[in-house]
């Protein structure tokens, strides 16, 4: 439909399967490495699938996994061969167009969130995450960052804790007590 250059400009690149990322005739930085990774992963899965029930029976537990991983191996190999044969995109670099520092940093923040969630609890972890990410991305003042981060966190917490009754790890915050106090307040008021 549209060529990749315009897709990158109007922000539809990779937005849906109707406008996939990548270039039609060239390969992007790192594309070959990703294709190699997919081939290796597929072969690893195929080996594992063979170990389930081997070729013992067509209806065995391993037949469909073996067939699908075999398809993965063949198609990923085809993709690798095709990709490797293409010329490299001249205008792109890995550090700018594929994995810019911002994206690496945000990805690391996400991992840190996962690590800290249980010990610290939902509210402190989320507050730290939002403040760090919004500050990094918007480069606005600390006052703006902290206000926006905490305000949206309070809204999210109220909606999901009260409306959807989702339980998140409380960690160091005595969440149950706070809710009890809130309940008492509203009960007395009403």
């Amino acid at each position, binding site marked *: 439909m549209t060529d990749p250059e315009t897709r990158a400009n109007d922000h539809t690149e990779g937005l849906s399967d109707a406008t*996939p990322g990548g270039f039609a005739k060239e390969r992007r930085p790192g594309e070959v490495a*990703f294709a190699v990774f997919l081939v290796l992963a597929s072969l690893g899965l195929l080996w594992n699938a063979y170990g*389930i029930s081997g070729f013992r029976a067509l209806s065995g537990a391993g037949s469909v*996994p073996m067939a699908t991983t075999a398809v993965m191996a063949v198609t990923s190999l085809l993709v690798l061969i095709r990709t490797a044969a293409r010329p490299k995109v001249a205008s792109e670099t890995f550090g700018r167009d594929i994995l810019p520092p911002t994206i690496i940093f945000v990805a690391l923040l996400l991992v840190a969130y996962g690590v800290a969630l249980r010990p610290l609890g939902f509210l402190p972890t989320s507050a730290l995450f939002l403040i760090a990410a919004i500050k990094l991305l918007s480069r606005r003042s600390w006052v703006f960052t902290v206000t926006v981060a905490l305000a949206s966190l309070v809204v999210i917490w109220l909606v999901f804790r009260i409306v959807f009754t989702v*339980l998140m790890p409380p960690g160091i915050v005595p969440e149950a007590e706070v809710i009890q106090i809130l309940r008492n307040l509203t009960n007395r008021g009403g």
Partner: protein
Amino acid sequence: MDALLSFLTVFSQPELLLLVAIGTFAGVYVGAIPGLSVTMAVSILISFTFSWEVYPAISLMIGIYMGGVYGGSRTAILLNIPGAPSAIATALDGYPMAQRGEAGTAIGVTTVMSFFGGFLGIAFLAAAAPFVSDFALGFQPRDYLLLAVLGILLVGSLSTGSLVKGIFAGALGLAVGAVGMDPLTFTPRLTFDLPLLRGGISFIAVMIGMFGVSEALMQLHHVDTPAIKQKIGRIVPSWSTVRKHLPLSLQTSTIGVIIGALPGTGGDIAALMAYDHAKRVTKAPKVPFGQGAMEGLVAPETANNAAVGGAFIPMMTLGIPGDAVTAIMIGALFIHGLNPGPMLMIDQPDMFWFIVGALVTANCFMLLFGLTGIRLFTKIVEMPRAVLIPLIMLLSIVGAYAVNNSISDVYWMLGFGVFGYFMRLYGYPLGPVILGVILSRLLDENWRRAIISEREDLGRFFEGIVTSPLSLALFLGVILVFGSQTPIWTWVKRILTRRTEQP
């Protein structure tokens, strides 16, 4: 009579009516805000609503679905940034119209046409689904197997990328869906002897990762894009404008329903195909396509909303999702202990008619919210991405965690998020992955049922395919889709054209 009563369930219960309204309202904004998509919203919502009753949960999701497919057009017209994938084609002519100062007209026509398309899609769903499900009762296990394969192949071939990458993505999804204990023999599959993998990979974690986090990471490339303001005038379009485009909108709605009903392909692809169709059949557009042609708005907007109704047809009758959102809804129904397929239509027809009723309601609310509240809208869309993206990520994490209260689900979600990010960058479609995960069990079970009933004999299995007209048609469909993308097809075509050139 019972059907009518179930159809009216939504209207008779204020709570459900309110949920559909909230859903549609939220959907319009979810669709309109670039960086928030319907698939993302519904996959995150599924984990929040799983403790609800099934009717309220589905009401909310349907509202978001209907509103979101429409909402993307707003930002496409005003900012030239499609808010949702299904509005990509809308930007091509919508934005030039806004630049000429006709943003109000463009939004008005889009809204009315989306309503029209959506309504036709639902009407088609209501009329066709009962027949399809009757027909589907006669399906053999091998037919389900072939249908699943055909669906995965179709997504790969209809999206603009390469079919090989599409097939890879589909196979990957099937493999991910197979991880864990085999339900029939209780053998561990693809677990690499890790106890962690025995329970399988939560498909919700995969979905949120692929559609939530990976899209948010993708948006980080455009974090500095400023929002542009537009003036908006009269919105409600004149009757003559609507009437003039009725014939075209009927055609493009039909395209939408059909593409929507094909397993795995949804509104985004339908909109692009309808746009191409409009370009072909409109002989003398008042304004050329790409420079603000009204036809270029009518076609994609009728098609993408018609595809919503279409997508529910295979979902309700066969248990095979019509697009990514219905794939997620099948997941939601599973969680609520319902198993979509021909038996659901017979055992619980009220569920089907309730969904039809909710869709009609959502469509009406969409028209209402579409023609009002523009001023509020322009405020919300100006929300900077630097705030939006961290919030999406936070919601994704909460969503992944909430289903099983498990941190490992969060890690799976993040892993698939990063993996999906690279898949997007290098042009691998994500739709087939989700379709594969959802269809994995169906495909596996039906293959084993089919081959056991043929006493493990591949020869008899193929004999069965060739002797049954339905299986044969599906099998030929698989061959055709596959063949049309391989060098064999270009080779055949070359021979054929050579023959016609030299009679």
